[in-house]
């Protein structure tokens, strides 16, 4: 166990559960405590679950193209709920159509996500990324302690 809790789910009216489920399984296998909200999850449910389980990160999936509409203001909702520091990942087919990834990534980082992942991302890459980010936070936290 890594000791970290992650909330996963597919945001909005999106039913694409397969990748999210495989990701959730892989994260569990990697030692995380995973709270899987499944498909068709409103933003509010992510935040509620994160508060209830004192989660360290929220992993938002969006595949169906309308993620850009659904994810607007997600960080603000977190901040309102007192989750200003929670790690926010988003991944999938985030926008409508085949768009230049750099532009898409920028848009989602601007929305307040810590990382955005392009179509086709494999679970290993996510796990590595999480490990690095939690490690960096631990160091930061350590430094803050000192």
């Amino acid at each position, binding site marked *: 166990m890594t000791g970290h809790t992650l909330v996963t789910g*597919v945001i909005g*009216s*999106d*039913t694409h559960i*397969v990748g999210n489920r495989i990701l959730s399984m892989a994260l569990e296998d990697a030692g995380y405590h995973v709270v899987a909200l499944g498909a*068709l999850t409103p933003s509010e449910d992510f935040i509620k679950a994160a508060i209830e389980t004192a989660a360290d990160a929220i992993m938002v999936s969006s595949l169906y193209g*309308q993620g*850009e509409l659904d994810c607007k203001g997600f960080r603000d909702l977190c901040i309102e709920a007192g989750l200003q520091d929670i790690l926010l990942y988003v991944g999938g087919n985030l926008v409508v*159509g*085949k768009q230049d990834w750099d532009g898409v990534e920028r848009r989602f980082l601007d929305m307040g996500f810590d990382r955005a992942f392009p179509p086709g991302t494999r679970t290993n890459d996510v796990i590595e990324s999480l490990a690095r980010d939690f490690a960096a936070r631990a160091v930061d936290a350590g430094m803050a302690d000192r």
Partner: protein
Amino acid sequence: MSYASPLDKELRPLSAQQIPGDLFARLREENLARWPTGAEVDLDEAVEYHLSLPRHKRLPCVMRQAEAEGRCLTQPRGGFGTLELQIELMQILDRDGHADVVPTTTDSYTRNERWEQAEAGINESQKEGRSMLNGFPMVNYGPKRTRQLIEAIDKPAIVLSGTSMPRLTGEVGYAAGYTGYLGSGLAYVTSYTKEMTIEEGIRNYQYLDRLVALYAAKGVELHRRQPGFLTGTNIPPSIAIVTCVIDALLAAGQGVKSYGLEMGQTLHLIQDAAAIRACKELAQDYLARAGFGDVATPIISLHWMGAWPQDDAQCAALVAYGGTLAAIGGAASVTTKSTHEAFGIPTPQANAEGLRMTRMAIYLARQIRLDEHPEFLAEVDLIKREVRPILDATLEIGEGDVAVGTVRACEAGILDIPWSPNRQVKSRIMPARDVDGYLRILDPGDMPFDKQVLEIHTERLRRRAEREGVPLDRELAVSSVYEMSEPLSRLVPDLFTGK
């Protein structure tokens, strides 16, 4: 969040019987009042319009002709967030793509009856100058304006609305002049919803199918279609066929006479051909036994519904092969994808290109059939042996009523769907590729398959696991989800270096 007509539930116990006319009139009234454009639906005007359409713009007619001539038609998917974009899209698919059937895919807010959100999406799209919705918000536009789409093309048009709540989209679509509508109760509840019950889904589609019967009573023949692809994720033919037959029985019960059955491709030439043949025969068999010998059930083959590779060239091969599989398999139509599939909704041009690749592949397939190929015949037989026990158990548990049986069968796990987001099904059944590239059942969940049949599946999966030197476990199913999206260097490594 999800709409289930209170009136329907109150006045009618769940059954496969046709909804009585007076009740249906009340249900329609209730339904059409839910959003302002509902008031625009004028059945008599719509009937008149339909009767004015030429033969080649009527989908039931076109499907019948295709079957009679042994042709395999092409149809893409496609929907954009505004009327202007949608007109352009449909014209390009018609003209540059030679599409035989032109689609209108609705957006996901519409599918979930979140029309306010859809309205916002229209506005955002107009503001940004690009589609922010993943489809066309048909209900917001209403039947009158939507009819512009029908007028813009000289082909039959079909509504593709992956929804378990088709009551209003159906009314709007058919009133606008669409002659086909894709969707069904069992299939879409289990693949597009999380909380909705099977019963609600069945009731919602009984409404749509009853509407089709109402049109029929006024002389207008409309096409309905079942999406056997379900979650699109390695659905073994038998699972697809079970849902096809159940939904077909439900539709026939409401009076539908032209009911297409969709089958997602397994991407195995022989298994796909066998699946098409088995589906055709089983559907007609069960329909006839239920007294519906007069329902046409053309088979529609779908380009690979699982995850796609990111390389255009690999995608082109998948697209073209999809045409080959549909044509050699004897499907009446094929629903196409494009080289953009892994990334997002295709541009109209990429979409049209996918249509042309497919159409050329269909030409190249000539009239080749595998009809007497022993491996094909064995596979048809195997699929039938898989399907029958499930269907029979479903009908039995329903005490003769297929609607009731379906609900109970899902509860009992007799019916199960792989990778489903829905909480009402167990989603314990797990498919995976076998050693020869056939889709097989790794874990049957609680589905009452024949033991000998399952042994065949297990044996072939075991051989794959052996060849790859991995255990016979869930990972086989997960790697089968990724398989087709892998880069070439993994799929066909170098002969000597294995790179």
